[in-house]
């Protein structure tokens, strides 16, 4: 958009000759150079030549991601501009990543083993401590059992055997029941829960464990008990019977625990060290690996020509950038040191190129507004250029208030001043992103609002008196005392010349303010509406001219513009004439204020061929010959309609007939219009004509929203001041500053929320509608598709979407 109103594309093929794998990699670097310029590769077929490489890169990426997951904190950001690596460097990196991964895995495994041992030792220690209490009981029990045996007079069958171990607490109850069952009640089961839960080394979960001791008699029961223990996954520990042995064992266990703790700590340190070493380079490697992956994705988009051993890519390039592309190819060839050059070849294609509008940060917002409606057809005139000014201006006509405009301008200016820092924090907040993206639009809207506020003489619903009012008081004391409200007659209370800049400040206090402003703003809206629409129709001439359809200017543009101007610009001319010709001090009473005609009624009568009825001394017409002129305009205007309706189809028919006489010579007609049937074209043209004619009326009336919204805004602003802020401005002593403070806060809140935000949004929307419907329907086609320049970021984004659900597939 910078230099022309249309965009320019060219289809090219470019060939990369590849001899060896090294060459291929060198071409990768070339590609990076080339694609930095912004091409649009066709994404038609994907060749799967480089799938393995892509998969390799994905694997590396996965490993790197796992390693970064193992880090305790996120890795530092990557070093700036990591360069493209040669295949050798990639291989080395791949090996290194493998090595690191296995190293970390081994370290982690060791740590886990150590932790398991540690856990067992802890359990053993607790076991020994707890069983000491059992054995105290046990010695008492033995005495009891010994006495029982003596009583039963059976031989001493030996000491009671026991098994000690640890089992998970939730299973203790069923464990005990099982033991009881299999031993037919011939066991003695003692348990004690471990108070603090122990950490499972593998899963990291905390487990509640219970120490138990099973006393039994006999070998068979021992075997059965052991089987049950293994079934319930209870860990058994050798526990000595005597107190002294227990103390020795406890001492030994405690020293082993201490050693193990030291070893564990050292292992953990080592692991941290390894990870820290990697953390520094991790992000850089990630980016490098992803770039490699992107390059291979790109190479996948090429098609391989086996005969000539080269890679071919098709893409669209803006014509302006062709020399850049050539230079990049040359640079790439030089950098790779390959003797075979890459060739760029222009291709003539019948496909429609994508639409590319070059934008900078200022124009991008406006281009987005237009693109939201539809991307321009290839080489069509771009309305965004004119929208830069017409959009904020029409907004300002609806929003016109200097105070609110100042708020908007300040807000936008602050964002723009800090735009560099603000654009760095990528925010997820949709609303903020919208405001930030549209900052230049808001700035312009604010500036124009201040201008229209100046002309409407409205600053927070008050007026400025810069040049001195044109209205003065002409009543004397007596009259003033008698009447509450008095009209100022323009004959004597008016200083004969209007206020130089905008609306006179006297109107601010007037109770019939709205009557005057309505008349003014309605006329203003229609004038701007007709001008805007005429501009839109005229833009179609630019299109016709560019696409070499000069007949369309005659057959479509001329009738359209005549229809619009003869009817609706004549309405505007009548408005101007009324402003000039009718005055309270006219000598001819026919041009006095009592006889001033309603322009609208005159227009309606013109269209309906009616005669105005007036009382003398008023005249029915403003000037001599008005009736004849109006009828002429009406006739010519309506004669334009059949020209619009039949002009283009008849012309096409005549052209076809002329060409069909030349078909015998073997000419083939490829133009689309010739293939279109007459019926279709007639229908299209009829729709177009009806849309235009009816649209001319309805769209003209639609522009009255400029008046409506401006009125609403002024009224809201006045209400807020008179009903809200006035309450605090009553004065009456310094103490009244406190209620004023509070009332001002409320007033400021409502001003921002209702008048700036809500009304601003509303006016924005209406202006957008005016542009999209009333303006662009006169000339815009909008059937194009966008040019998406190649970028690594986009490809990697695509790839991430692939990686998440399906980690094994490497291509798009």
């Amino acid at each position: 958009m910078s230099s022309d109103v249309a965009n320019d594309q060219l289809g090219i093929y470019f060939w990369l000759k590849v001899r060896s794998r090294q060459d291929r990699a060198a071409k990768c670097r070339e590609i990076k150079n080339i694609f930095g310029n912004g091409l649009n590769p066709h994404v038609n077929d994907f060749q799967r030549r480089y799938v393995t490489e892509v998969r390799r890169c994905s694997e590396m990426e996965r490993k790197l991601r796992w390693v970064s997951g193992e880090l305790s904190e996120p890795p530092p950001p990557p070093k700036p501009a990591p360069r493209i690596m040669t295949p050798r460097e990639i291989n080395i990196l791949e090996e290194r990543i493998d090595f690191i991964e296995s190293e970390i895995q081994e370290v982690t495994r060791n740590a886990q083993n150590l932790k398991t041992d540690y856990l067992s030792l802890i359990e053993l220690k607790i076991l020994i401590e707890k069983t000491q209490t059992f054995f105290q009981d046990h010695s008492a029990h033995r005495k009891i059992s010994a006495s029982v045996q003596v009583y039963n007079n059976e031989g001493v069958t030996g000491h009671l055997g026991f098994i000690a171990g640890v089992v998970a607490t939730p299973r203790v109850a069923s464990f005990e029941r099982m033991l009881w069952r299999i031993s037919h009640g011939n066991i003695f089961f003692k348990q004690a829960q471990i108070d603090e839960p122990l950490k499972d080394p593998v899963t990291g979960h905390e487990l509640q464990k219970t120490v138990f001791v099973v006393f039994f008699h006999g070998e068979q029961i021992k075997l059965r008990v052991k089987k049950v223990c293994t079934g319930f996954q209870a860990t058994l520990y050798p526990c000595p019977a005597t107190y002294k042995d227990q103390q020795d064992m406890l001492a030994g266990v405690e020293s082993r625990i201490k050693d193990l703790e030291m070893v564990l700590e050292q292992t953990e340190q080592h692991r941290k060290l390894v990870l820290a070493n990697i953390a520094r380079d991790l992000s850089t490697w990630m980016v490098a690996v992803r770039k490699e992956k992107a390059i291979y994705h790109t190479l996948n988009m090429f098609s391989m020509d086996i005969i000539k051993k080269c890679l071919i890519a098709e893409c669209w390039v803006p014509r302006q950038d062709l020399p850049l592309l050539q230079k990049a190819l040359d640079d790439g060839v030089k950098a790779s040191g390959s003797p075979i050059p890459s060739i760029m070849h222009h291709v003539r294609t019948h496909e429609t190129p994508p639409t590319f509008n070059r934008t900078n940060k200022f124009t991008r917002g406006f281009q987005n507004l237009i693109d939201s409606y539809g991307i321009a057809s290839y080489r069509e005139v771009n309305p965004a250029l004119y929208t830069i000014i017409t959009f904020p201006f029409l907004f300002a006509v609806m929003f016109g208030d200097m105070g609110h405009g100042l708020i908007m301008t300040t807000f936008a200016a602050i964002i723009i001043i800090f735009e560099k820092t603000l654009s760095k924090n990528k925010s997820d907040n949709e609303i903020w992103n919208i405001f930030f993206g549209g900052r230049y639009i808001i700035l312009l809207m604010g500036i124009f609002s201040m201008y229209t506020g100046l002309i409407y003489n409205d600053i927070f619903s008050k007026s400025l008196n810069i040049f001195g009012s044109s209205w003065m008081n002409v009543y004397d004391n007596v009259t003033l005392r008698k009447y509450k409200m008095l009209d100022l007659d323009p004959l004597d209370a008016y200083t004969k010349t209007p206020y130089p800049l905008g609306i006179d400040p006297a109107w601010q206090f007037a109770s019939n303010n709205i009557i005057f402003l309505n008349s003014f703003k309605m006329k203003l809206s229609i004038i701007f509406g007709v001008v805007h629409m005429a501009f839109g129709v005229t833009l179609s001439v630019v299109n016709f001219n560019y696409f070499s359809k000069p007949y369309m200017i005659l057959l479509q543009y001329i009738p359209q513009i005549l229809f619009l101007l003869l009817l609706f610009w004549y309405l505007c001319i009548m408005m101007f004439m009324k402003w000039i010709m009718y005055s309270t001090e006219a000598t001819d009473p026919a041009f006095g204020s009592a006889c001033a005609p309603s322009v609208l009624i005159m227009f309606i009568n013109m269209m309906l061929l009616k005669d105005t009825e007036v009382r003398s001394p008023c005249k029915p017409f403003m000037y001599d010959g008005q009736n004849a002129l109006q009828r002429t305009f009406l006739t010519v205007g309506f004669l334009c309609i059949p020209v619009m309706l039949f002009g283009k189809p008849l012309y096409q028919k005549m052209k076809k007939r002329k060409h069909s006489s030349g078909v015998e010579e073997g000419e083939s007609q490829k133009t689309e219009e010739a293939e279109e049937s007459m019926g279709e074209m007639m229908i299209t043209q009829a729709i177009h004509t009806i849309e235009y004619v009816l649209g001319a009326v309805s769209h003209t009336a639609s522009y009255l929203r400029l008046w409506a919204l401006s009125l609403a805004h002024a009224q809201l602003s006045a209400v807020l001041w008179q009903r809200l802020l006035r309450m605090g401005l009553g004065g009456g002593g310094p103490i009244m500053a406190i209620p004023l403070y509070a009332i001002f806060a409320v007033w400021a809140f409502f001003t921002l929320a209702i008048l700036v935000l809500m009304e601003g949004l509303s006016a924005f929307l209406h202006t957008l509608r005016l542009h999209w419907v009333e303006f662009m329907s006169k000339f815009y086609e909008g059937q194009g598709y966008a040019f998406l320049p190649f970028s690594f970021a986009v490809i990697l984004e695509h790839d991430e979407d692939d990686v998440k659900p399906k980690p094994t597939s490497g291509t798009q």
Partner: protein
Amino acid sequence: MGASFVPITVFTVLWGVVGIVCPFFAPKGPNRGIIQVVLMLTAATCWLFWLCAYMAQMNPLIGPRLSNETLIWIARTWGKPYA
């Protein structure tokens, strides 16, 4: 005609300079066309807007209806004392 010569000239010349003269001095570069269009459109729309406001008040057919207090006040402060 209730028009005064001075304001018309001033504002027409002002917007004329902005819209007709300034585009010739637009800085050369990729954005020259944009700047020219912006200047021309700004001048045209702002001038037309001012013109409508001016012409609507040239020959007023009605006058403001003010309260007697306001009339007294404007008579005092706007420098046209009442009879």
